[in-house]
């Protein structure tokens, strides 16, 4: 890969407490050509957000300490330009909350990687 191409890589922050899902997302997005940064819980996610700019944030909803809803709320307040994909594993009101907090795309688990790819490409472009 040329240096120029490496420099234009879009950066995606993945905030997910499930190790397997986080690893799968990281591998898949890396395969698609994105640079990835990961966080294992909401609090670590907030720390990562402060460290550098991102082109996209993918966050789980149900996480310890700070939920994905908290991440989306803070992100949309401080960095409204960064698109967010919310991943939710449990129904009841998580999806409704994610919509209220203006998540740009909401995916239920288990999710279709093709749909994820399309959503990422659409939001990053």
């Amino acid at each position, binding site marked *: 890969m040329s240096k120029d191409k490496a420099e234009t890589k879009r950066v995606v922050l993945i905030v997910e407490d499930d190790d397997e899902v986080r690893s799968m997302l990281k591998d898949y997005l890396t395969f698609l050509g994105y640079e990835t940064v990961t966080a294992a819980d909401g*609090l670590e996610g*907030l720390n990562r957000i402060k460290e550098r700019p991102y082109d996209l944030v993918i966050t789980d909803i149900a996480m310890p*300490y700070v939920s994905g*809803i908290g991440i989306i709320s*803070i992100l949309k307040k401080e960095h409204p330009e960064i698109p967010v994909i919310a991943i939710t594993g449990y129904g*009841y009101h998580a999806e409704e909350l994610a919509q209220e907090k203006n998540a740009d795309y909401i995916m239920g688990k288990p999710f279709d990687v093709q749909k994820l790819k399309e959503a990422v490409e659409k939001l990053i472009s």
Partner: protein
Amino acid sequence: MKVENPFGTLFDQIASKKSGAEKADTNRKNFSEILEKAKGPGPTEGKSPLAAPGEIVSKMELTSVQKKALSRGEETLTLLGHLAGLLEKSADSSSLESIAGALDSNSSELLALKTKLEQGDPLAKTIDEITVLSMVEKIKITRGDYT
């Protein structure tokens, strides 16, 4: 060779527990009498002050706002617990700042949800307590009490 049926043995044991007197009593009554006895006193005979299980369940049904408030309140309390754990060790300022931001965001949302609760909802008092606690901790973090 005789093979004993274990179920048959168990049934026999249960059946043998029914004493002769009980068995005779049962035989005398018809099914409706037994059913009435099993149901206990009817609604007009000595009504219990306790609510029926169905009534309790219906009273515990939560509105969407209450569910959201409980979820955010629980998250905030977990975060405060995590903060306490961090402070026992040595917390880095970046994590503390993130916690302060999350506490601020949660408090704002809890207060917004409180305004949507019905008048007299006991959850409002709980929200007040959690919010006060959160704001105090947020102020302590931003003031530098923990660094």
